[in-house]
């Protein structure tokens, strides 16, 4: 059972960085098309495959070191 993961970094000025993982083929584009349309203009889009395996652990460590804040 594959897991789909969406990661977002919402900058102070409203700019959004989005990372989509765990999709096969081009289905990842479909997965976030509606969201991207609702958010605004996509300025950069890169296809990745293995690049995120390294980043994943880094991100997890980073997240663990910081406190969670709820609105």
């Amino acid at each position, binding site marked *: *059972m*594959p*897991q*789909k*993961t*969406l*990661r*977002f*970094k*919402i*900058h*102070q*000025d*409203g*700019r*959004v*960085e*989005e*990372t*989509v*993982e*765990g*999709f*096969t*083929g*081009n*289905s*990842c*584009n479909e*997965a*976030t098309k*509606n*969201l*991207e*349309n*609702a*958010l*605004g*203009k*996509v*300025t*950069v*889009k*890169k*296809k*990745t*495959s293995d*690049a*995120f395996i390294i980043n994943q652990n880094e*991100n997890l460590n980073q*997240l663990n070191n*910081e*406190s*969670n*804040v*709820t*609105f």
Partner: protein
Amino acid sequence: MSHFSTIKTQLKEAEPLINALNKLGYPINQDEKFVKGFKGKFTAVDISMNLPGETKVGFKWDNNSNSYELVTDLDLWKFEIPVERFISKVTQMYAYQTIISKTKEDGYQIVEQTNKNDGSIELVLTKWVS
């Protein structure tokens, strides 16, 4: 296949915009659909607010940019933060509200939410697919 995108957020939908304004604690004025400026000049808007310090602010749909744009009289701006900072805060919260509602519709759950030191918000959402 995965992808990485950078998106310039635009205020494209009323619902997440209203949610964002509420979340930030800016009271929306449902009765008035205009912003009164210098010398009593009125401008019609779709969403209007009274910020503390008698600062009148509204959002008006713009057909050229296909998004809501801020309407205010800068000469009468007395709110505690500069107008640029106000727009940034609203845009960031709009992006947050849009992401939360759209991903929920698609069955994603929030697994991590972090407020970073640089003022950004990081979100991780997942979905299991059989």
